[in-house]
């Protein structure tokens, strides 16, 4: 099995604060890894470093064997990594279709000015996340939370991402929307996409991941099958804030 993403000895310091502390993990192609931990554990910081929005203090990040630590965010995206945000960030005055179009744009001024947008590709991406053709002409500002999550997924898929970093995909969703997004992600998994998922909604996340790692204050405290990670004493303590849990 090919290793899609390999993070080794990643460290990120903000002054005296250690946000990521010697974190290492590997993610195989087609696999789905859950990243859990209490608020402020440093999950989003890990995402930001993989995307190049933040530079790590030390450690390496390899994508299919290539060190991508020195690349800019657009260069990493061009390689096939994409992320969604904890709070969806649509282009609110644009339509759903135009939002997807921005994701599809090549990073070249010439083709942006002289090339044409690919309507059928836009339709296909929109429909692949469950929008109808009519939905595509809605303004993004009219969408409900569940639809905004779908829009973010479509825009991220439009960039050609093969490895998807999903930050709190279930936050702010109704039960119905959670099962809709969950079905969508299961479908994407069958299609061979690789996932790194952060979520507070542990039951919703369980069927979507192969294994999990738990971090607390930037340090990995457990790794393995999801149920084992959840049963881990340190993990329970970090979530519930009580070291006597389970004893």
């Amino acid at each position, binding site marked *: 099995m090919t290793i899609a993403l390999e993070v080794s000895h990643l460290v990120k310091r903000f002054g005296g604060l250690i946000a990521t502390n010697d974190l290492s993990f590997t993610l195989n192609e087609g696999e789905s890894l859950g990243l859990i931990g209490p608020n402020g554990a440093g999950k989003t910081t890990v995402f930001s470093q993989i995307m190049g929005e933040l530079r790590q203090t030390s450690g390496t990040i390899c994508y299919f064997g290539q060190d991508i630590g020195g690349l800019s965010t*657009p260069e990493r995206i061009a390689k096939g990594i994409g992320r969604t945000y904890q709070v969806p960030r649509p282009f609110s005055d644009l339509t759903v279709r135009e939002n997807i179009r921005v994701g599809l*744009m090549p*990073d070249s001024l010439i083709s942006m000015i002289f090339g044409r947008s690919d309507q059928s590709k836009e339709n296909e991406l929109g429909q692949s996340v469950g929008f109808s053709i009519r939905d595509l002409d809605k303004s993004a500002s009219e969408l409900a939370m569940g639809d905004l999550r779908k829009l973010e997924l479509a825009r991220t898929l439009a960039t050609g991402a093969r490895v998807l970093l999903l930050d709190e995909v279930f936050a702010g969703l109704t039960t119905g929307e959670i099962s809709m997004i969950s079905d969508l992600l299961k479908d994407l998994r069958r299609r061979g996409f690789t996932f790194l998922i952060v979520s507070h909604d542990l039951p919703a996340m369980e069927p979507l991941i192969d294994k999990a790692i738990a971090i607390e204050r930037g340090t990995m405290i457990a790794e393995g099958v999801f149920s084992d990670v959840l049963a881990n004493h340190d993990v329970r303590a970090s979530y519930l804030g009580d070291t006597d849990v389970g004893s």
Partner: protein
Amino acid sequence: MPEFVERGTLRTMIQACYLAIFAMSWDVLSGRTGYISFGHPFLIGIGAYSTAILSKKFGVPPEYSIPLAIVITMFGGLVVLLPALRIKGSYFALVTLAFMELMYQLVQVIRPDLTGGTRGITGIKSLTRGAEAGYELAVTLMLGVALGLWLLMRTRFGTALWAIGMDEDSVRGSGLSTTRLKTMAFLVSALVAGLGGAYYAHYTGSLAPRALFDIDFLFTIIVAALIGGAGTIIGPMFGAFFLIFLLEWLRPILPGAERYFVYGGVALILYMYQPKGLVAIAQSLRDRVRGDNYDHRA
């Protein structure tokens, strides 16, 4: 049309056309990407001074001095403002404002024999004879700029600039180099500013640094774009004509600086009522009228 209007009105129309060009130039950069430029007089000034100096002091014919002035504006502006495009929000506005003031000082200190110092330059060769020809030239320029920008903004490039104004990080998160996009937007904006500035210098025949690198001039440009409707092509044109004619109509009633109170008040009320500008107001009126018609038929 020129035959039917007074000469004074014609001159007002010409003013409005040039203001429209400047407002469209401002809007391509600031109205779209949200990077508010306070430095447009700086760019317009480079264009105006370049062609004035080239044609008056070096005898370069305007058909060469104007294109040269545009190129100088684009690259001169780029060299100094490129670092500023990496700064966000109000800092960008402040840096560009500083450049405008710097330019005012520079034309006085560096080679006053060329720039004319505080007195400016007079006797710049006119391109047209009479107000009518001047009007036709100004309208042609304005419509040419409008068409060019409209075509450009319809492309994916235009969509991407607009997206930057909404959420720049998300544009980068979609895999696009936003610095490159902003630089291109800046170059287009500088091209239009340089073109407008150069032709305007030949139209007025003189340049006065205090009137050009001036905060009133700067705000007139910005207000024209905002009350007309930022992020559109027709909006800044609409706003420029509205503003120039408003000031002109107020002149007999309020001859002094009080006019600017009224104009400021009108701009404020319009902007508070509809931040998307006159264009959006016109659109909603049209929709309402159409809606009524449908009701009658039903």
